[in-house]
């Protein structure tokens, strides 16, 4: 799909990076310690999201309390692992390496016709299962690395990369992730390369989505944060088809952002009329 261009600026998304850093570092520190943990584990792909989360975790907890896990598949771009190692070097971390090729390939010998989406989802879920095993082994909480753009568009694997205990960057659009990544001085290659889920060779987020983050983020910001109607966003200078498409993606992916539906039977059904804070007694 061709990438849609618009000239509408991302200026409304500019963030106050020091304030954001302070809140996110406090978030990691408080929410980790509150539940009796003092360490975290992060799946580090070498992309900007997981690199930023790793850096924030180091600032919040100290690098000796952060375990990055690099989980390449045989088709993963070699530059991804190189970038992940660069991030670790910069932050003074020793990563764990788990090659997911054997477990993914073993499964797909039974389903050789599986398309790349199925394979990509499987990889994301294998990585999740590894992170949760490392979580148990290390006594470390799993940090999530899904940003607000991905979460709103549903551009993630349910119970895969979307799974975590705490997600520090889930309220930051991709554009804002870039800004914060520069503020915490992530290595240049991590900040400048094209975003990719790297689930197959040459994959690109923006090609998958058919729209640039710089555009989709501003559209999402106006639809979600500013609560504008589609016509109001179009009036700002965006292509109507693009705005409609973004809105449709948000609507159709809503299920991914909610816990599974529970059939109502009793007077107190979990999450409907049985409502307790997660930090209950913490």
């Amino acid at each position, binding site marked *: 799909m061709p990438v849609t261009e618009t000239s509408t600026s991302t200026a409304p998304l500019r963030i*106050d990076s020091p304030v954001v850093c302070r809140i996110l570092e406090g978030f990691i520190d408080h929410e980790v*310690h509150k539940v009796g943990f003092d360490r975290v584990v992060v799946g580090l792909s070498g992309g900007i999201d997981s690199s930023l989360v790793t850096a924030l975790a180091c600032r919040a907890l100290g690098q000796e309390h952060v375990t990055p896990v690099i989980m390449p598949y045989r088709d993963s771009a070699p530059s991804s692992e190189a970038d992940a190692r660069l991030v670790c070097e910069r932050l003074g971390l020793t990563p764990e390496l788990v090659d997911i090729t054997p477990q993914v390939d073993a499964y797909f010998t039974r389903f050789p016709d599986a398309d790349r989406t199925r394979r990509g989802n499987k990889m994301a879920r294998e990585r999740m299962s590894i992170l949760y095993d490392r979580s148990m082994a290390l006594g470390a909480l799993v940090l999530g690395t899904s940003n607000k753009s991905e979460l709103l568009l549903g551009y993630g694997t349910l119970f895969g990369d979307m799974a975590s205990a705490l997600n520090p960057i889930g309220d930051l659009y991709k554009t804002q992730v870039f800004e914060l990544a520069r503020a915490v001085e992530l290595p240049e290659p991590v900040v400048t390369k094209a975003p990719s889920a790297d689930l197959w060779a040459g994959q690109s987020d923006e090609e998958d989505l058919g729209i640039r983050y710089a555009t989709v983020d501003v559209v999402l910001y106006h639809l979600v944060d500013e609560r504008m109607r589609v016509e109001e966003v179009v009036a700002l200078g965006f292509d109507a088809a693009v705005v409609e498409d973004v809105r449709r993606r948000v609507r159709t992916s809503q299920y991914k952002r909610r816990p599974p539906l529970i059939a109502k039977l009793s007077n107190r059904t979990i999450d409907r009329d049985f409502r307790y804070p*997660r*930090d209950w*007694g913490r």
Partner: protein
Amino acid sequence: MSEAPPSGSASTVARQRVEPGAVADDSLLVAMAQIQPRLGDVATNLAQHLGVIGEAAKQGADLVVFPELSLTGYFLKDLVPEVAVRLDSDEVRELAAACRATTALVGCVLESDSSRFHNAVLVLGDGVVRHVHRKVYLPTYGLFDEQRYLAAGERFETFGVAAAGRARSWRAGVLICEDMWHPSSVALLARQDVDVFLCPSASPGRGVLRGEALGTASSYDVMTRTYAQLYTSYLVYCNRTGYEDGVNFWGGSRVVKPDGTIARDPAGSEAALVYERLERSELRRARIETPLLRDERHDVNDAETDRLRGRRNA
């Protein structure tokens, strides 16, 4: 604070000691207890309160202000009935007993005889509950859901706080967080000749776009300064700190003087026990300089309210 902080390395309490020096003729030493309550754990929070009250009393504080729902934490949801206290509860008795020389404002869920649950502030002094304010405006929008769980209060009343050894008391009124967002609340207290607005809060930090600093902090900065200046009164704002379910509370407790200036830089986002001395002479000077309270036309306000009430009913 003498009690161990409830959790997290970031909850270390910074202390600001009272500066030694001559005590002015008529002043009130206020301590703002910017604490981080543990959500739903009344026993732990009670111990922390007693520690803070003891510490502040040792420093000679006349008044200790705790944040909104300081005894329970804020995002309680279905915990509301489980953490509620009654005026005759042991927790309240224990708190009251700790407040002899010092008056304390403590935030709690207060259960009525008819099993209504209010977001309330207890004013404890002389060993008893001297006053109760039940939050009138319960925000139920955005991230707030108070009307689902809580009953609304209906009054804005005042009470006196006396500095130790002085006969003349300071007239005070309580505004709990969202109460402040409705200027009529402030006006009602001002009409009862308050000297100081006491504003316990549990304000979640949000709004991080550039140029905005922290959006909520900016709003409260404008609001607290405006009210103090327009009503030529002191305003004590005590917000909490810490995180609940990922939401941060931004602290920023401060005293605003009757001319609308902040007594000193507001507290940061960490737990702190901050002292400030309110001076009657400052209040007097501000009201001489800007006699807005003297000039307030309550007669016009009453007449217009009557007229509008008639129109609404017509």
